[in-house]
């Protein structure tokens, strides 16, 4: 098979999927929006040294999903979002005042809720194949392809909200990220903005669980930001680059996974990692 044939085969296959299956279109919309939102907040989290918070919160969300499954709730978001938001507030908002340091408390919460969730799923099994259920929640293997129209709209609404909050408070988020002490001293209510960041990141994580599963979310949060930081030197450029890159990687990852039949979440993350490699190289070349 020559290159041209191969390209046209890929193209035909993709257009086939897009025209025939609604779930593919849904998956693309949701995937791109989630990647965009998580990359926006990712820059702040990476710079504030909270990279691991995405991971911690996603484990909390896993525990919450287990609770929702066991309770047989039709819409598990009702439980998952509040629990994750509250954990995010506890982790981020209380900040430096706590006795247990940030990284330790994240590790604590994440393993505790992971094991709690797994235990619940095993003690009160709702289906015959528990390991498939668990695997799906952890790696998001198929849930992105089973989205309903309501879920898609929910995701679109939340994404618009996140983007609006980010644009409206852009300068304040910058100030709080760069120098919280100065921002507070000159009358900015930093704790309020930290709270806002915590809530928004929790919402993003719950949404992103559909896409990549709870184990891989932090990749969506940190990779675009880290890649952009290799090359760009102003906050605005880093944010814009990270958003564009996240959208590109997530779209490319999903297309590859459709054509090659690979797991969606893992493919997106691998593309993100590859992009990071490329950006690191560019950064190195630029430096010399």
């Amino acid at each position, binding site marked *: 098979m020559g290159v041209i044939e191969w390209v046209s085969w890929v193209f035909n296959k993709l257009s086939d999927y897009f025209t025939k299956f609604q779930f593919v279109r849904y998956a693309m919309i949701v995937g791109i929006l989630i990647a965009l939102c998580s990359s926006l907040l990712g820059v702040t989290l990476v710079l504030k040294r909270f990279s691991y918070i995405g991971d911690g919160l996603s484990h909390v969300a896993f525990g919450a999903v287990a609770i929702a499954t066991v309770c047989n709730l039709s819409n598990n978001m009702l439980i998952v979002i509040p629990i994750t938001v509250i954990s995010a507030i506890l982790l981020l908002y209380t900040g430096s005042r706590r006795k247990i340091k940030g990284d330790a408390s994240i590790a604590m919460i994440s393993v505790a809720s992971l094991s709690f969730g797994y235990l619940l799923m095993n003690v009160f099994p709702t289906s015959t194949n528990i390991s498939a259920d668990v695997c799906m929640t952890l790696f998001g293997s198929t849930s992105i392809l089973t989205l309903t129209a309501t879920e898609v709209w929910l995701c679109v609404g939340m994404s618009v909200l996140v983007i609006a909050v980010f644009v409206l408070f852009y*300068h304040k988020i910058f100030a709080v990220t760069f120098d919280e*002490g100065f921002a507070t001293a*000159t009358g900015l209510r930093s704790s309020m903005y930290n709270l806002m960041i915590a809530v928004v990141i929790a919402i993003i994580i719950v949404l992103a669980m559909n896409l990549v599963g709870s184990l891989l979310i932090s990749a969506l949060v940190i990779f675009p930001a880290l890649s952009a930081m290799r090359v760009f030197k102003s906050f605005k450029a880093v944010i814009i680059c990270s958003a564009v890159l996240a959208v590109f990687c997530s779209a490319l990852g999903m297309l590859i996974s459709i054509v090659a039949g690979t797991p969606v979440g893992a493919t997106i993350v691998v593309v993100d990692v590859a992009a990071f490699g490329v950006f690191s190289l560019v950064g190195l070349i630029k430096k010399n």
Partner: protein
Amino acid sequence: MALLTCRDLVLGYEGKKVVEELNFSVNAGDYLCIVGENGSGKTTLMKTILKLHAPISGRIETGEGLKQNEIGYLPQQTMVQKDFPASVNEIVLSGCLNRCGFRPFYNREEKQAAKKNMERLGITDLAGRCYRELSGGQQQRVLLARALCATGKLLLLDEPVAGLDPKAMADLYHLIENLNSFDGITVIMISHDIAAAVKYASHILHLSFKPLFFGRKSDYIHSETGKLFREVYGGER
């Protein structure tokens, strides 16, 4: 009425006293240097003036129409800032945020103010550069420009020359002196450098769990505390 007055102030963390019996006032146009050993409560005092930290007892009064959010602050550098991707322009502008209120973007006046303050500190040509690639002295000028955007009255500087080479140190001292004497900005500075404190300041506050001395520089030089301290740390060079 003084710009800033501390009355019976007791400071500390979690109920443990660090400094007590703080009674002093700062008048407009003063240049106050706070000196003392490590852990003597200098930074705690500064954070309390900025309302970042609550005092155990006592109070701080501001006068002459000084609002709490009109205090410019030059903090010690944090780890986060060392590799922060931000342009000089973005950082200086962020000093204007206290004028924005709920408005999400900067207006023309604020952009002008940032430009003016960059000119004032001679960093206009650095405006597009990345903060983390600047030298220590340049970084301090950027943060000073940001502080000036936040205030026209009172500057609080927390060891502004720490980690600078002698040339950059002298330049920064000179700059601060000019802001104080030509622009009439009141300066409160924490310093380890007793020689520079004695050289530039108009008033000295010497802390060591209690204020050992507060008053004019000329009195400090002849006081017991001043004599002793200057013998150990060196006097005028």
